[in-house]
């Protein structure tokens, strides 16, 4: 009680210093690193300079980035959605089943997948808001649940055209051309997945930083009690965040399904860690020190550049995780070690 006051005021009254080197590093360090690597690869690898390389890099990044945007929204409300990878994986299976086993159109598959994503988000929201289970634990349970559940109707098999069904007949449908076009098609030179990535990034950024809903979500993530006492209906916004995350993971799964062209049951397995990593990396971009959409997109792109560059330089595949780990580590150093701002959003996440 009595000794609380000075502790607060000393932090509060700390003189605000002008931009010094440390602040510059925190603000622009991440972008500088991205530009540096880009320039390095651009100068040393001739193939890296092709615009097709750029687009294929962005296309390949889009799946992780879109799932990462969903994770970002849940981090904004102070949570973390661990079920995104499994949701994307389930989306692949749902899309394959709709088209191959039930011989439906691609558009039906898209709707089915988006609805499934929203339902998973709603289920997470139920566990977290109504059952009061901590976010990490609830979404972890959901992750296992849907990873297993998606295998039951397909009896653990990948779904592709020509699949022999339980009654001995051959599955009647196949991945429609239209559906496969999600991955192959492009708007001018820009592949559709990159278009979707760009649109969702801008939409998420707008939602989080320019609307009142985003404002309320940030408040909930920072101080839920203060948000509640100011009239925010905390439960509803948390639920909304997990629904958004579920739908985004489903969109990532759609692109993935279109890319592989079959209901690969292992699809999306590695997506969770990548998506969480880019969202975490995103918190450090521009010294924001809070989850934000542009940061997540930029984090995903940096990792994409590094993976493409190192692959082109003939680094073996197992270097990929080392690269991701280093990027995440550097981002965390920016956020936690160098930044003067208190890192409040992800600090409580025991990863």
């Amino acid at each position, binding site marked *: 009680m009595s000794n609380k006051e000075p502790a607060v005021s*000393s932090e509060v009254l700390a003189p605000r210093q002008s931009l010094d080197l440390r602040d510059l590093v925190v603000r622009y360090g991440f972008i500088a690193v991205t530009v540096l690597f880009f320039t390095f690869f651009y100068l040393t690898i001739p193939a890296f300079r092709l615009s097709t390389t750029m687009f294929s890099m962005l296309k390949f990044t889009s799946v992780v980035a879109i799932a990462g945007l969903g994770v970002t929204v849940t981090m904004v409300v102070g949570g973390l959605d661990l079920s995104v990878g499994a949701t994307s994986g389930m989306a692949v299976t749902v899309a394959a089943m709709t088209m191959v086993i039930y011989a439906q159109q691609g558009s039906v598959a898209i709707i089915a997948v988006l609805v499934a994503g929203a339902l998973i988000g709603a289920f997470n929201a139920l566990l977290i808001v109504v059952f009061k289970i901590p976010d990490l634990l609830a979404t972890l349970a959901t992750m296992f649940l849907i990873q297993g559940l998606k295998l039951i109707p397909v009896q653990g098999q990948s779904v592709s055209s020509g699949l022999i069904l339980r009654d001995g007949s051959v599955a009647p449908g196949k991945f429609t051309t239209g559906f496969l076009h999600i991955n192959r098609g492009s708007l001018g030179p820009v592949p559709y997945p990159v278009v979707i990535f760009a649109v969702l990034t801008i939409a998420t950024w707008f939602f989080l930083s320019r609307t009142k809903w985003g404002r309320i979500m940030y408040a909930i993530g920072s101080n839920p009690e203060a948000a*509640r006492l100011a009239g925010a209906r905390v439960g509803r916004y948390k639920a909304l965040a997990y629904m958004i995350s579920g739908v985004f993971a489903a969109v990532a799964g759609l692109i993935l399904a279109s890319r592989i062209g079959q209901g690969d049951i292992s699809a999306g397995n590695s997506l969770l860690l990548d998506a969480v990593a880019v969202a975490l990396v995103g918190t450090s971009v521009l010294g924001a020190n809070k989850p934000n959409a542009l940061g997540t997109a930029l984090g995903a792109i940096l990792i994409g550049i590094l993976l493409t560059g190192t692959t082109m330089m003939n680094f073996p595949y197992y270097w990929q995780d080392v690269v991701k780990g280093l990027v995440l580590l550097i981002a965390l150093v920016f956020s936690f070690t160098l930044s003067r701002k208190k890192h409040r959003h992800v600090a409580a996440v025991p990863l």
Partner: protein
Amino acid sequence: MATVVEMRGITMSFGTNEVLKGIDLELEAGKVTAVLGANGAGKSTLIKVLSGVHSSYGGTVLIDGTAVQLDYPTTARSHGIDAVHQKIADGVVPGLSVAENFLFEDIVNNDISRVASMRTIMPRARQVAAVLDLDWADDVLRSDIYGLPIADQQLLLLARALVHEPRLLILDEPTSALSETEAHRLFEVIRRLRDDGVAILYVSHRLREIDAIADRLIVLRDGVIRSDHPHPFDWAEALHQMLGEAEAVDEDVREELHGTDDVLCLTGVKLLPESEPFDLTLRSGEVTGVFGLLGSGGSELARGMFGADRFEEGEMTLLGASFSPREPADAIASEVYMVPEDRVAGTIIKDWSIAHTVTFPFLKEVSRFSVMDGRAEQRLGRSVIDEFDVVAQSSHDPVISLSGGNQQKVVVGRWLRKQPTVMILNEPFQGVDVGARRDLVVKTREVAAAGSAVIVMSTDLGEIMQVADRVLVLADGNLQHDAYLSETTREEILKRLTEVE
């Protein structure tokens, strides 16, 4: 009686804030010495110095006439000083059995192996329990402490302290989590210890308890001992010393407002589990002040009216219609607003500017189709800065960078500017300098004069007498007094506070 611990000129500062300003106190064996003091009087700091938590104190502590330096809790303990702190949850470890909790100190000191079997633990746990004659069954000792009643957890912590056979036992608000029956059990134990010659330092806000258990009463204010009373206590004097002189109120400029219209009616509201239900009507056009010591139910009253928590029992009507907010959002929709007592935990979003903080409860006003209008926000932020004389460079300043008084102006101002139907201000003057407090009082009274029903909770009678027209007295959740200031006196209010029915 023999003096066990003697303090000479104890001082303690945090930064430039001097919390203890020279405490001279002798604690005698076989006596219960109670300490009374308002928030920030220095009680907690005094306890922490004695129990070795704050090592950088000034002055001397003598034990049996020999000067000692209390650098660590272990040093204090080795000199026979043991403390049971206020929060039971800080002392017990859920997930461990009751027996293991009895032996927790041995476990952390590695005197008992973590993998020790229950067979070795049980007899030693029973030894600790025997200090207080706690004859608990084996299956109780084996069960997780989580399931143990709070009072028993408190007794366990006490036993753990007593096992060192302390010469001085410090009890900090030991009954705050206990029911009345449970508290009586604790008192019996305290009386027995006293008769065995233990010196006891008893800190509490509950006057009735102090009256029942203490042999001597020390009143602390602003880091100084103001008075020292033998039993039976002169409560009027003790409270007078605790709460300070009546401050000069601008009687000449303020005219007492008497409200006319009933706005918020509470029926059969029960604030605390063991308090009596009461009815209360808040009227528009006056400021109702609720005076009570810490834990007397003021916060429960504020939070219940605002929908932040539920009353134990009771109903409300607002302007004649039934009013039962399930969430603060419901209350806000009915123009019932509250400023919570803990400014930092309850209102401040770190890094947010003044403008963001001001507009947060009313984002509709500063957005079009839910898209934020930055200019409108800054305009609104500036209007609160201007209207409430907030000392700040601009509405972009982070709220956290302001002084306590200016922070409070921002978080009070964001509601007052709306001319609320009911405005609940819980401890609005805590950590607020005199100038800012004056400004807030003036604004609060203006809003009431313009037709709001305003209710202010405070543990400081001076504040209540400065801001309120009508004063309510709460003690242990019971409504003891309800009168206009012109109809009552400071002495009457203090008398009602200590009245035991």
